[in-house]
């Protein structure tokens, strides 16, 4: 299963990077979203996808899924959500003040 996930992560990265390289601000933000998904799945995959119960302790269960990467991903989800929200509002403000969607249209000086 892991190699399929590795390819899937690669594909998510590719689409995310492709979007980031485009001109529209919205597409760039969506690209970062996809990149974030790719990173989370990569974390999950690299810890191993062995079968086991969800890491909630209960009697009679011998093996659990690794809880540590899950904790890391949870932290990461929240942080990336905060960043994305800020990002989007920033883009919204940029639209408002500059009236353009394209980043290359900006004059670097002002």
């Amino acid at each position, binding site marked *: *299963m*892991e*190699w*399929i*996930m*590795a390819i*899937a992560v*690669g*594909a*998510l990265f*590719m689409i*995310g*990077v492709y*979007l*980031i*390289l*485009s001109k529209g601000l*919205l*597409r760039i933000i*969506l690209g970062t*979203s996809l990149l974030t*998904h*790719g990173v*989370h799945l*990569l974390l*999950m*995959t*690299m810890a*191993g*996808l062995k*079968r086991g119960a*969800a*890491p*909630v*302790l209960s009697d009679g269960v011998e093996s*659990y*899924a690794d*809880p*540590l990467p*899950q*904790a890391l*991903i*949870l*932290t990461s*989800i*929240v942080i990336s*959500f*905060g960043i*994305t*929200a*800020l990002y989007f*509002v920033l*883009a*919204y403000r940029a*639209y*408002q*003040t500059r*009236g353009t969607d394209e*980043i*290359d249209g900006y004059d670097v000086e002002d």
Partner: protein
Amino acid sequence: MLHIAILIPFLWAALIPLMRWFSRIHAGWAVLPVPVAIFAYLISQMSQIGSGENIVVEIPWMPDLGINLSFVLDGWSLLFGLLISGIGALVVWYSMFYMGKRTDSIRNFYVYLLLFMGAMLGVVFSDNLMVLYGFWELTSIASFLLIAFWYRRERSRYGALKSMLITVFGGLAMFAGFNLLYAMTGTYSIREIAAQASELVDQPLFLPAMILVLLGAFTKSAQFPFHIWLPDAMEAPTPVSAYLHSATMVKAGLYLVARMSPIFAGATEWFWIVSLTGLVTLTYGSFKAIRQTDLKALLAYSTISQLGLIMSLLGVGSAAAFYTDADQVAWFGLATTAAVFHLINHAVFKGSLFMVVGIVDHETGTRDLRRLGGLMKLMPITSAIALIGSFSMAGLPPFSGFLSKEMFFTAMVHILEFDVLNAGSWMLLLPILAWIASVFTFVYSMILVFKTFGGKLKENTLDKKPHEASAGLLASPILLVSLAIVFAFMPNLLAYNLIDPAVAAIRGGGVDFESVHVSIHFWHGWTPELWMTIGVVLLGTLLYRTYTRFKLLDREWSNRDTLNRLYNGLLSLLENGGRRLTDLYMTGSVRHYLIYILIFFIAALCGTLVFSPDIRLGMDNYAPITFYEVALVVVMLATAAAVPFARSRVNAILFTGAVGYMVTALFLIFRAPDLALTQMIVETVSVVLFLLCFKFLPKLKSTKERPVFKWTNLLVAGGVGVTVTLIALASMGSSPFEPISTYFLNESYKSAGGKNVVNVILVDFRGFDTLFEIMVLGVASLGIFGLIKLGVQTTP
């Protein structure tokens, strides 16, 4: 005492600004005692040095780095110390009458001059290479300040910058050379390095170190092709030109070459590089000097030429290092003696000539040879000084220059018998070049004195009515030229006290003074050297009579200044090239910068993957493939792939949201309920937020159109995707350790009292992460609030 002699000028320089409380006294009076005291101190040490005993002072500075303030007074540094303090005193005296009291910012002048004097003393007394380098750069800085003393003139600033760039370039090369020496020997002390000299020759770093050190010496001493800064440095006040750019600073390179001789001499490269550079500089400088119409420019090229002469003598003198037999060492080492003797002579006559030119400038208002002439009757003393100085420079009897010129010829003829290098008839090049250069030297010396003082007075071209200078102004040059006569008639006075110890120091390795002693006479008999001098005089006179008629010196041809054009061209090439290069890649486009970053990312990581042998792509121990997972992955990728193709914003947002939900489902399947919960909520809120903001966006035509497709973007994106996949596979294939999660699973309930292990990790085992993640959210929300509420400026 020695270190105090170096310290005093610096301390004094700090006190000079206080002279503004005594504005009725010329600040020069306060400066004068410093060089006089140092000169007196050095004279008092002369007998001790003359008996072969060096003075050593060592003060720890950075002992862990091998950098200590160690100073040595031996014959060679004593000679320089006397030159610096002696001519320094005369120049300070001269400048008191030359520089106005009120018109010039005279205190700045003396601060810079004292700074220079201290730095120069530091250069010649330092035994530690790093300390020497420090003082060396300080002389460059002081020289820079002095050249640009009249900083409102454009030419002054240009000359100062040029000299700074060239000498600092050489200084840095020298710094590198010093460090190579340290790498080879493990010490910065010149004496200790010289003691290991015999082991150095075969080391691979020996030649680079030699060339780098020589670069420093050649740039400082204005050797070809680094001489171009010196003529432009003539924008400095004349006392500065006399002091720095003829007698002291430009000789720092000669000092260094001689100081390094015990280390490098004995290598054939040293012999050839130093001798030939010196001879080329000598010939080129003397040839260029003839064409100058400005007196100071003529003297500048003459200085370049004479420095080349001394440099070539130092190179030829290194031939002695190939021999061990005392007679042969003395025979070939004569050149070193000649170098030391001519160094003294040059400082004496060039200093006086600069002062004479300053006087002429002062009295007539011009230094242009085409406007000058016939000053002999009006300024008899000045012209007498100029005559003596010029004749000494040309190498005519009965002045000291004659003796050193004779010794120069002797050395150049001697070297023909030097058989170690098997150079054969190539060696003939040395005396021939030397002789030709001497003819040119004769010609420009005659031009200097007879075009200025001889001929008819062109009164209408001069700004002022010329008259004899004041006694104060004349005192310094009179003292100097009388030295030129004294040295000529009593050369052995100098030989025993100064030249012999200096030559012994250059030779190094405990040579006793008797073996280096060469008695200097006026009359050698009818030797080849004498015939050479007679030839110089005859051909030189002929050339002087006819030189204006020569096509060779036609103005069109002679004004071509290739090296300066090269320098200016190189400078503007660097500036323009740098700007163009920056404009090329700093485009201002975020997309371009991202592409640079990503291409580097791909290249660095793929390169490591390919070239590192320990990394392999693991394919074993994988979890089994199940249908639901594969189906979810396929759907997720399909929706993700649809995002770039979406024609409207709403679709793009919805597709991204769909990817998020697929990820949620994958989390669920991979047994991560908390993640799935969070991801679902976050994704929902994000999509809602996106749509909410989308509603307020201005209507833009471009976003409704089909997005532009770019092959480069796809290529870079594909590269990143492949790299990440490969890294994921490689990391799974080469992880050698067991995970630490068994600890969390075992201890979650026992130590923390919770059964949801993920939650226990978040709030208990690794609670700090959570604390700051909350902070991130708080900061983000404050930021959003600020962005929306504050600074509401609408579209211009």
